[in-house]
């Protein structure tokens, strides 16, 4: 029987690009974040219960992300979070969260297909992002573990600093090639300069 699960039919938004993500330029590496299970959770009352079912304490402090055991919860708004998990666990995660939250007012939407992840790592990662992201990305202003929905030129992204020189970028898949190409251009330019 054919596999009709969502993950089986998902194609990378970078399918038309070369499979090779290009060389590391001046120590800066750009790569695909890989498929993942993604959910948008809404509802302030759902945090405590969802944290238990998700296995990660969902942050209620603005602009914070919490991660552990391959899962992550990113604060997007006072009642909105992005939950990330391994691609294979999408159905299981949805089922366990829905079961735990059955009696709590909330909204849980699977957005695994809506967006994709990019990883930019290496020295100068913040400088390269700053070509398109008008946020202060110094370590003091944007420390490790901070996440923010913001603007990347014309695309809306969720930016998450997972390491001093490593950023995870969540972007809607229709904007993903745009973000990838701009980041590629910027890192080449920065390498020359």
């Amino acid at each position, binding site marked *: 029987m054919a596999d009709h699960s969502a993950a089986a039919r998902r194609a990378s938004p970078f399918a038309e690009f070369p499979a090779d993500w290009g060389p590391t330029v001046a120590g800066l590496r750009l790569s695909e974040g890989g498929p993942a299970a993604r959910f948008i959770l809404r509802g302030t009352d759902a945090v405590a219960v969802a944290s238990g079912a998700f296995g990660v304490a969902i942050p209620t402090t603005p602009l914070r992300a919490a991660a552990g055991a391959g899962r992550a919860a990113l604060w997007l708004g006072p009642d909105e979070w992005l939950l990330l998990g391994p691609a294979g666990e999408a159905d299981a995660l949805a089922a366990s969260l829905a079961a735990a939250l059955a009696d709590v007012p909330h909204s849980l939407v699977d957005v695994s297909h809506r967006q994709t992840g990019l990883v930019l790592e290496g020295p100068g990662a913040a400088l390269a992002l700053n070509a398109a992201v008008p*946020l202060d990305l110094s370590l003091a202003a944007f420390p490790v573990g901070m996440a*923010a929905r*913001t603007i990347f030129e014309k695309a809306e992204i969720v930016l998450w600093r997972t390491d001093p020189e490593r950023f995870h970028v969540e972007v809607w898949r229709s904007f993903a090639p745009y973000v990838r190409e701009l980041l590629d251009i910027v890192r080449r330019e920065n390498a020359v300069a």
Partner: protein
Amino acid sequence: MLLIRCPVCEMDRPELEFRYGGEAHVARPLDPSSVSDQDWAEYLYFRSNPRGVHAERWRHTSGCGRFFNAIRHTVTDRILATYKAGEPKPDLATLTGETGR
């Protein structure tokens, strides 16, 4: 570029992330059918449009997504204060006194 402090994110964020939402503290009549045409028109169409400090709504569209209120000087474009929606309007005299205008 203007930096606008989002009271929900508690951080200065670039103007690009925001959308303007018109004058703040315009209360909708609780019972529209009982107000006069004049009062309803005042609510719908008439705004103060001052030359000076102005309380207005902004939305942090590409951020936390929340509406909040800002006190902005319409001549200098300086934002004197931002505060969460639902909170009372700050005392304008105190604000303008602090910035010398």
